[in-house]
């Protein structure tokens, strides 16, 4: 439902996330957090907000996926997302 996406997208955009349509992830390069499309679809606005607010040292990428990505998927994503 677009209405539900609207709310979550607004939260993500306000937190300076962009959407990478090729990898279907929302990412913030400063905080180095990545949310999968599926994770955002399946979680409420407040859960997404809580994940955004989690402290991050910005040193290593943190992945918010429904199923944790394997090490090789993480490496691949880290390479392509910069």
């Amino acid at each position, binding site marked *: *439902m*677009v*209405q539900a*996406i*609207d709310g979550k*997208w607004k939260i993500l955009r306000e937190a300076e996330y962009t*959407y990478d*349509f*090729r*990898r*279907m*992830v929302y990412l913030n390069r400063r905080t180095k957090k*990545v949310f*999968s*499309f*599926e*994770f955002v679809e399946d979680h409420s606005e407040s859960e997404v907000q809580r994940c955004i607010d989690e402290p991050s040292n910005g040193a290593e990428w943190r*992945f918010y*996926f*429904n*199923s944790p*990505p*394997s*090490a*090789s*998927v993480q490496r*691949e*994503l880290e390479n392509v997302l910069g």
Partner: protein
Amino acid sequence: MTDNRAIEDHLREEYFRLLPDIRRVAEYLEAEVKYFLLPIRRKLDRYEQVVVTSRVKDCDSALEKLRRKQEGATFDTEQPTLYTLRDLSDLAGVRVLAFPSGRFAEVDDEIRKRFESWEADPISLGEAETALVHRYSGYCREASDSVRGEIQIVPMLIGLFWEVEHSAIYKPSPDLKSVATDPEMRQCASKVYEALRDFERQFEFLLGDQKLGNR
């Protein structure tokens, strides 16, 4: 360790191994759906339409779709055996475009009855509360045991919009298909669906009025 290219090569080989089955399923399913819908198609009014088409998903689109099905749209290069194109339910697809909504519902009832063991996976589009597109997938055992077929029943105006969108953008570049998941693109698409729905509703409203007036 495998790389992405090795996974894609393995999937391309699989695609061409499956291709005869995919073609058989598409042909069989199209013939069957047309046959089941004959009674409806024979009684259509001049402005009403029920159009049945089939298509075989091409190799690059199939690979892209399988990649997009993975969370993060990324294959795990350390687990190449996880991936098979048989996980896709729409390698062979039949689409029924129907207009107006009364015929759409009638077509859906008939297909659901004829393919009752198939899995239903309706699609909601935009802000619609109810599913706008009905989708069923399953095996046509007469055609293949290894490739599933998919039947989509789509309101005609939306189906024609998809065809334009597909042939203009995604057909030449299957890797752009995921553009449609972009939040702002989804909002734009939602407005298109809403406008097409309004158009169809108003058309049916006027037509209903006209019929009542003629009585």
